[in-house]
């Protein structure tokens, strides 16, 4: 039982990160049916942005309570700036092109950003140790399981972000405009919605959440790496599809399901196919199974099929 609770906690932490990144995929996909393949890299940029803020901007003795929000801000500025630039320079000109074109652009951007960080961020050619700001004893969860304070903070922050996003989309004017654009861009435009601005908003929101995830991963894994975006992005997209792409709640649910599947597979698959080496394989097998048996995702996708 203690192992079960422990893995449950680990899975929830992992799932929170996936969910945060998946939201970025699902929002952009919901509105312009684009798999923003470079979103994983936006997440990576967010992590590096917050690290750079800590390392090069903040004075050494900054208290944690001040440092963390400022690091998050730094990460968000970096990832949002990159995301908006990409949208403006690379995706927008291709909005009416056949679907293959923006996807290939996205792959190009993804490779470009990885290399940019690897070559020009000091020390990024190997893994960079991320400052462990949240120390202290792990918190007990009952049944002998514990969770480190960093992970606990990550889960709380992630859930707050998700609720904030859901509220924003449901209640605010811009949020409702996003929903309208996702449903029918042409009609939305006729109703006076500036769809270009809405699309940028989706990129900005997605990038901000990715930056939160980047900082979170840095905090609880203790290291960042220019390659961290590729697999995380792939998993997050899997999470988005799992929950039903275009569906905000679905992305969150998909993230948690995927996180739990991974941690439980590591723990409970017996024999040689258990263990950390196979966890990514299990994640993708879940994706394929979902596509076979419930292609619209767990909660159902929210985009009109325009393909």
């Amino acid at each position: 039982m203690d192992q079960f609770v422990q893995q449950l906690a680990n899975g929830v932490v992992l799932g929170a990160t996936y969910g945060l990144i998946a939201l970025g995929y699902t929002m952009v996909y919901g509105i312009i049916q684009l798999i923003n393949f470079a979103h994983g890299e936006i997440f990576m940029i967010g992590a590096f942005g917050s690290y750079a803020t800590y390392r090069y901007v903040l004075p050494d003795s900054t208290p944690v309570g001040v440092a963390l929000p400022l690091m998050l801000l730094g990460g968000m500025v970096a990832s949002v700036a990159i995301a908006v630039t990409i949208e403006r320079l690379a995706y927008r000109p291709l909005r009416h092109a056949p679907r293959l074109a923006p996807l290939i652009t996205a792959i190009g951007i993804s490779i470009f950003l990885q290399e940019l960080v690897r070559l020009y961020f000091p020390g990024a050619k190997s893994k960079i140790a991320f400052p462990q700001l949240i120390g202290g004893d792990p918190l007990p969860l009952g049944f002998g399981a514990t969770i480190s304070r960093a992970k606990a903070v990550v889960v709380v922050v992630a859930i707050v972000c998700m609720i904030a996003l859901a509220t924003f989309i449901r209640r605010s004017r811009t949020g409702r405009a996003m929903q309208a654009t996702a449903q029918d861009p042409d009609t939305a435009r006729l109703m006076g919605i500036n769809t270009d601005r809405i699309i940028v908003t989706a990129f900005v929101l997605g990038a901000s959440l990715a930056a939160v995830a980047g900082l979170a991963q840095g905090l609880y894994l203790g290291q960042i790496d220019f390659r961290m975006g590729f697999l995380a992005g792939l998993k997050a997209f899997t999470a988005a599809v799992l929950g039903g792409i275009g569906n905000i709640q679905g992305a969150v649910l998909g993230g948690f399901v995927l996180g739990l599947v991974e941690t439980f597979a590591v723990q409970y698959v017996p024999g040689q196919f258990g263990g950390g080496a196979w966890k990514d394989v299990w994640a993708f097998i879940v994706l394929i199974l979902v596509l076979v048996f419930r292609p619209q995702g767990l909660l159902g996708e929210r985009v009109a099929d325009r393909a």
Partner: protein
Amino acid sequence: MSTATAPALGATSRSGVLDRVDARVQAAVPDRLARPVVAVAALATAASAFLAWAYSGSFPGNLTVYGYPGGAQVYVVVLAALTAVVAVVGPTPAGRRFLPAGTTGAVRVLSFGTVAIVLFTVAAIAVEGGGLVWVVWGGFLAVVLALLLLAAGRALRPDERRFRPGVHPAPVEFVVIGLVLGAALFAFVEALAIAEPPVFAAYAIAVATGVVAASRVGWGRVIGAMSGRHSGVTVTAAFLMAAAFPFTQGADNRWLNVAANIGIFATVAIGLNIVVGLAGLLDLGYIAFLGVGAYVGALLSGAAASTIGWHPPFLVIMLLGAASSALFGIIIGAPTLRLRGDYLAIVTLGFGEIFRITVNNLDGSSGPKITNGPNGIPGVPDLKMFGFDFGQPHTIFGVELGYFANYFFFELLLMVFVVIVFVRANASRIGRAWVAIREDETAAAAMGINTVRLKLLAFAGGATLAGMVGTVQAHVTSSVTPDQYQFINSAFLLAAVVLGGMGRVQGALLGSVLLLLLPEKFRFFADKQLLFFGLALVLMMRFRPEGLIPNARRAREFHEHDDEADALGAPPGAPVAHATKVDRL
């Protein structure tokens, strides 16, 4: 997408300002006056290449000499002289006959190429030496003259000549096709022979400029029409030219090895082109199917590190490799091809990762010992078929060829097979159905096409071809490791297809050659190659999404909305700037 209905209203053409300046200049200067000016500027530029450009003789080609051109200067002379000739000959009867599409475009392209080489070389001298002081006055003069030439080219009246490529007697056309292909082989061998990167860069610019200029004067369409009439002859001649390549290298394995890698890569790229280019299925894990074949090939090759003792004849291995790949293709494709295309991209990407992780794990500790994990299967022996040892140099027609030539010839045979599959499928009912699915799946289904079955055919067929090639690849690289099959290589394959031009064999070939040759030529750049690769993909999609050798229909598809936007954005009565563009398609 249904969203693709509203072009950006009021969008102005990007080159609007430049067009207006051009129009003003052309109105002021008559064409017959402008052409001699261009010719003089061109000859002056060519003459400036006979001067010294650099203080230090260490720059490749030794540019410190007055009196004759060296290194990159040679290409400046050639391009500038061509510019002069084309500019002067253009309006003459001979020019009208042999340069049927007009010469203004060609003059501008050639002068642009000249400027590019001059600027690049001068910049390279400055960078290499550590400052502009290393450039001699001759270099600056060349820059000024070349820029003058570029400016003078703007005064020429734009091309408006439309023409219909004439039909010539078959032997004449055969000779032309042969000459073009021979020139291509010559250009390739020449490219390999140039060792210094700056000189090679100048050469590459010169060749690219020459090709574009030739297509601007109408030769592209003329040759296209000829090869279209005699496609069988053209393809045969092209393969003969490729087969002639090892004879230019002799016993030297250096470039034969690269050629053997290009052969594998290009064959796989053509296979991917069936999946992506014809059926429109974005496969981001194609390299994994090659990997399946390669692992089958390596495991059954009798290598010491192999965990399977059985060593059947190679043709059996090839079939087994193809079959295993096909099996994986069906397993992956069957569930996902029922869904929208985007899912396929992500599932194939996931499959690629699963494959890499799996072969990495089957090392005896994380899983059964089959693939030796990250160490892979080294020491795959050379192929032996029917008593012919691929590992030995052989003498053919009195020329001793390095042993990679054996693989190269064998790959050519494979490539012929894949090309035949591609061409025959494309020309058949199946190919038309694929195109229909690619264009509009719903409409295709409504026309009675079984879309799932045909998509699966393309997907699994592509996988089969990749698996087959993989068994050969195991022998060419002589070791098979998980790293060879990571995502970036799928991206490379896709890039080869896209850069060259989707849906065409020539496109995939050109893309493969460029993608494998350029890194070999710019090795000192190794660290930044991926950076530029990513950037190149983005720029390509932005400015020439149809690829270098476009398929006419696809090119129109990609530019449909540019034209619409331009047409709406242009003021009424404005000249249609795209008349020549349509001509070139």
